[in-house]
C-alpha cells in the first residue's frame, strides 16, 4: 500500500509476443509520481510497444499493469475508457486529425468526454494551446504547421483532459536541435506546472540527459538497467555504454539491428 502513493504506474512481468516473436520479455518497471521517466533503446527493441501497452492501446500477452493501485490491463469497455481519459498520449507523427483545425483537435477529447458548454471548451482549449506556445495558431489546419508545431499541438491535445500521466512516443524525432530543446523544455515545464508524470520513449541521447529523472534501457525486449541519469552515464554495462556513446564497435551488432529492423 506504500507503493500506491509513491508509484503511479507499475508493470509486473510484462510479456508480449507478436507474430511468434518475443517483443517484451519480463519487463517490470515502476514509475514514480511526478517524474520524467525515459525508456530508451534502439529501433525495434520494443519500447514503443511497451509505451502502448502501458497506455492501454495494445493488449499484452501476460503480466500486469497497475495504475493507481488498480490492475488496468485486463479492463475492457467503459472501465478502460475511464482509465484512458486519465492518460494523454503524444504520438511520433503527432497524429492530429487533419480534417480539423488545431483548436478543434485540442477540444475534441473535452467535447467527447464532458458536457461543458462551448465557451468553456473554447477557453480550456485556448489555455492548453497557450501552455504549449501555440496561441494564434488555433484556426490553422495541421497540414499548415511545421513539424515542431504539430508536436506541440499534439501535446496540447494530450493534456486537454488534465491527465495524470502523459506518454510521449519519440517527442523529438525528426526535429532540428533547437526545436528539440524547445520540446524537451516543454516536457519539463508541463511535468512541473501541471504536476503530471511523463513517460518518454526516445533514442535521442541529448534529450535523455536533458529531461530524465530516471532512465530505463531496453534491449531486445528486456530491461537492462534502470537508474538516474548519472547512474546510466557511468554504467558498467557495455551495451548501455555503446548505446549512449553511439559507438560502432561493441556488443550491439549491426546485423541483429538490421534483422530487427526487418521485422
Amino acid at each position, binding site marked *: 500500500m506504500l507503493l500506491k502513493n509513491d508509484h503511479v504506474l507499475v508493470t509486473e512481468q510484462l510479456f508480449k509476443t507478436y507474430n511468434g516473436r518475443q517483443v517484451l520479455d519480463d519487463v517490470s518497471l515502476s514509475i514514480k509520481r511526478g517524474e520524467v521517466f525515459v525508456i530508451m533503446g534502439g529501433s525495434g527493441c520494443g519500447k514503443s510497444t511497451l509505451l502502448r501497452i502501458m497506455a492501454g492501446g495494445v493488449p499484452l500477452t501476460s503480466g500486469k499493469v497497475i495504475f493507481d493501485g488498480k490492475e488496468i490491463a485486463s479492463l475492457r469497455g467503459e472501465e478502460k475508457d475511464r482509465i484512458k481519459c486519465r492518460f494523454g498520449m503524444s504520438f511520433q507523427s503527432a497524429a492530429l*486529425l487533419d480534417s480539423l483545425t488545431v483548436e478543434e483537435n485540442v477540444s475534441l477529447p473535452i467535447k*467527447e468526454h464532458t458536457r461543458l458548454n462551448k465557451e468553456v471548451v473554447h477557453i480550456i482549449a485556448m489555455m492548453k494551446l497557450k501552455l504549449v506556445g501555440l496561441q494564434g495558431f488555433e484556426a490553422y489546419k495541421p497540414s499548415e504547421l511545421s513539424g515542431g508545431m504539430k508536436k506541440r499541438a499534439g501535446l496540447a491535445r494530450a493534456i486537454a483532459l488534465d491527465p495524470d500521466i502523459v506518454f510521449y512516443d519519440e517527442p523529438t524525432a525528426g526535429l532540428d536541435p533547437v526545436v528539440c530543446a524547445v520540446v524537451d523544455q516543454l516536457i519539463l515545464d508541463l511535468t512541473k506546472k501541471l504536476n503530471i508524470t511523463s513517460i518518454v520513449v526516445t533514442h535521442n541521447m541529448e534529450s535523455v540527459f536533458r529531461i530524465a529523472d530516471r532512465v530505463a534501457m531496453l534491449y531486445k525486449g528486456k530491461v537492462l538497467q534502470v537508474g538516474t541519469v548519472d547512474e546510466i552515464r557511468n554504467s558498467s554495462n557495455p551495451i548501455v555504454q555503446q548505446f549512449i556513446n553511439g559507438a560502432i564497435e561493441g556488443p550491439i551488432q549491426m546485423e541483429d539491428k538490421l534483422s530487427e529492423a526487418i521485422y
Partner: protein
Amino acid sequence: MCWCQIFMDGVKILLETLYWIFIAPFRFKPQERKALDGKAVFDQMAFMGCDSILIVFFVTFFTGIVLAMQSAHQLERMGGVIYVASLVTISLCRELAPVLTALVIAGRIGASITAEIASMKVNEQIEALDTMAISPIRYLVTPKFIALVLMLPLLSILGDAFGILGGYVIGVYNLHINSGLYMQIAFKFLTLKDVYTGLSKAFVFAMIITLVGAYQGLKTEGGAVGVGRSTTNSVVMSFILIILADCVITGIYFFSGN
C-alpha cells in the same frame, strides 16, 4: 475461413454501430459522455444525400429513357406501346432505381468512407482516437451509417421520379402518347408494394455500403498503396454484395408471392 473472418468482422462493426445508435444514448447520462452527434449526422446527410442528387438524376433519368426506347420497340409489334409507361415505372421502382442508385452511391460515398478512414488509419489517427477513449466506430462510422440509411431510400425515391420523367420524355415526345394518358397508365399498375420493395432494398444497400466502407478502411495497412487498395476493394465488394443482396431480397419477395 477467410470469408468467414471478413463476415465476422463486418458483423462486429454492425453490432457496435447499432450499440452506439440504440443503446449508448440511453445508457450514459448526457453529462457523462457523448453517444450520438447530431451535427455530424446532419453534415453527412448533406454530403451523402444532397450532393448526390445530380449524379442520381443522370443515371436514373437516362435509364428511364433507355428503358422506354427499348421496350417501345418490342411493345409496338404487339400494339401495346401505351404500356411503355407502366413497364418503365414498375421496373424502375421495384428494381432499377434502388440498385443503380446504390451502385452509384457505392462508388461515390463508399469509396470516400473507405479513403477517409483508411488514411486516418495509416497516419495513426485511428490509434490516437482510441487512446483518447473515443471509439472510431462511434466517431467515424455511426454518423455515416445513420446518414446513409436515411438518405439512400430518399435518393432512390428521387431516382424513381427521375426515371419516370425520362420514360415520360420518350413516351410523350417520341411515341406521341398523350401526356395525361401516359401518367395515368404509368401509375395505374403501380402499387405501394412496388415502392416499398424498392425502399427495403435501398435500406439494406445503405447498410452494406457503410459497413463495407468502414471495414475496408479500418483494416487498411501499408501506407498510400494500402489506402488505394482498400478503396478499390471497398467499391468492388460493395458492388458484389449489393447485387447479391438484391438477388436475395427479390427472391424473398418472389417466392413469398409478392
